[in-house]
């Protein structure tokens, strides 16, 4: 049993080291791809960002609507129901927007990236590129990595905006909170630093989700089972790492 634990630990250390080297290669190659092959990046912003819009907007709306309901029900105990807008804005901009967007991104775009790259590996498409003298890391992985990083902050911002709309619809439209109080209290309380925190988080989560998705696809065992496991792993690991980093960034920002 001790040997099993030791082997698992060594395997983890090996995989972590390999990921770090891979991440460094992604970073080193990113500037040249961003400036010289921007069209490849734009295509991936569309694939990972635009195609994720529906799920982000629908989820954002309902999360905001729930915040409106919960906020009203709980703040009413302290006669502070007018602060529902402030409550929803803080929750969405600083926490739920970046975090839920990252989790949804991992589920929609991350799985698509991991399985696409894994299947390209399984069908020798990546080997074929190498044989044509084209580095798959530069041609396939870096544009997807950059596409995810660019898309994530926008998706998180859209999630928060739609969420606020949902909270407004429930709070003002359904529960009768004064529309002026809803928006004015929010404007008075929310500071630029809060929005910056949300942007920083969504950017960091974009780096995490994109890099883990392309890594899992690239390092997948090139079989149907291997690609399936890599796809699942990309979601699970991204969720864990995002929540750990969320705690760390929040702790630093406070």
């Amino acid at each position, binding site marked *: 049993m001790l040997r099993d634990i030791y082997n698992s630990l060594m395997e983890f250390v090996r995989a972590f080291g390999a990921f770090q080297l891979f991440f460094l290669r992604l970073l080193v190659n990113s500037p040249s791809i961003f400036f010289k092959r921007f069209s490849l990046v734009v295509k991936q912003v569309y694939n990972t960002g635009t195609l994720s819009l529906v799920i982000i907007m629908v989820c954002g709306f309902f999360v905001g609507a729930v915040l409106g309901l919960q906020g009203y029900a709980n703040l009413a105990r302290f006669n502070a129901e007018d602060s529902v807008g402030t409550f929803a804005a803080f929750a969405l901009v600083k926490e739920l927007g970046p975090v839920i967007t990252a989790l949804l991104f991992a589920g929609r775009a991350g799985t698509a990236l991991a399985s696409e790259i894994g299947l390209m590996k399984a*069908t020798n*498409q990546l080997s074929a590129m*190498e044989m044509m003298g084209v580095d798959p890391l530069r041609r396939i992985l870096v544009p997807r990595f950059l596409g995810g990083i660019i898309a994530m902050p926008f998706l998180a911002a859209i999630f928060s905006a739609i969420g606020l709309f949902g909270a407004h619809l429930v709070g003002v439209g359904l529960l009768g909170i004064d529309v002026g109080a809803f928006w004015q209290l929010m404007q008075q309380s929310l500071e630029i630093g809060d929005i910056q925190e949300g942007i920083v988080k969504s950017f960091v989560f974009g780096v995490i989700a994109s890099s883990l998705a392309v890594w899992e696809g690239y390092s997948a065992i090139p079989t149907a089972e291997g690609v399936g496991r890599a796809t699942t792993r990309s979601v699970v690991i991204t969720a864990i790492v995002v929540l750990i980093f969320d705690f760390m960034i929040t702790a630093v920002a406070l």
Partner: protein
Amino acid sequence: MLLCFAAMVSESENLIEITDLCFSRGARQVFNGLNINIKRGLITAIMGPSGTGKTTLLRLITRQLIPDSGTIIVDGVDISTLNRADLYKLRRRFGMLFQNGALLTDISVFENVAFPLREHTNLSNRLIRHVVLTKLHAVGLRGAADMMPSQLSGGMARRVALARAIVMDPEFLIYDEPFVGLDPISMGVIVRLVRKMNDALDISSILVSHDVDEIATVADCSYLISDGKVAASGSPEELQKASSALVQQFMHGMADGPVAFHFEAPDYTEQLLGMDAD
């Protein structure tokens, strides 16, 4: 046979020299002191039973894998000494046809063939179109230029992959199991194309396969690999006449022989009647 012999006379004629190659995957020794010379201008076939590491050998030659020991010299250069940039430069001189074609599935046939040109050259779209259509015409698929890879049959996909492999005018072509899973017509087409490409483009070809009949019609020189080493070499006719039991089993497709029909297993009776039956 004469071609093979003539090429063996001069060492400088070797395009690829593999010396004392050892490679293992986990506990399994795939190659154990393999020595092969690939001659310029010829079609060299690498044959062997399934699982002997033929495709692994191609991956070693192209340095997609790194050997445990031994040297692989390609056109006078030890490929283990190359950095990534030089390796990719060398690979541009290769053309490789994968077993399943390995076409990029999200772009059309035309774009697949144009892919290396777009990546490595600054040719105008007009010129790229001209070159791509010429290559597709050579494999008889000019009319399929706008199709997607998913719309192609296995044989067509392999022909498109061949057009892509020759679009940069490589110095040598590598074929990984080009005949597997093809109907007789497609197989005949591929056999003719292998010969035609080698002679018309004046290049060298390495062909990995276990289709003995097809190899006999197209290869100038053959190596039979077994147990991690070269078991026999020579022209396909020479291999047909070789006295070795292994070569005879392979060339004539006999079920049992040095390569046993049964995979290593415990005693049959013991296993059926023994305790582990519970």
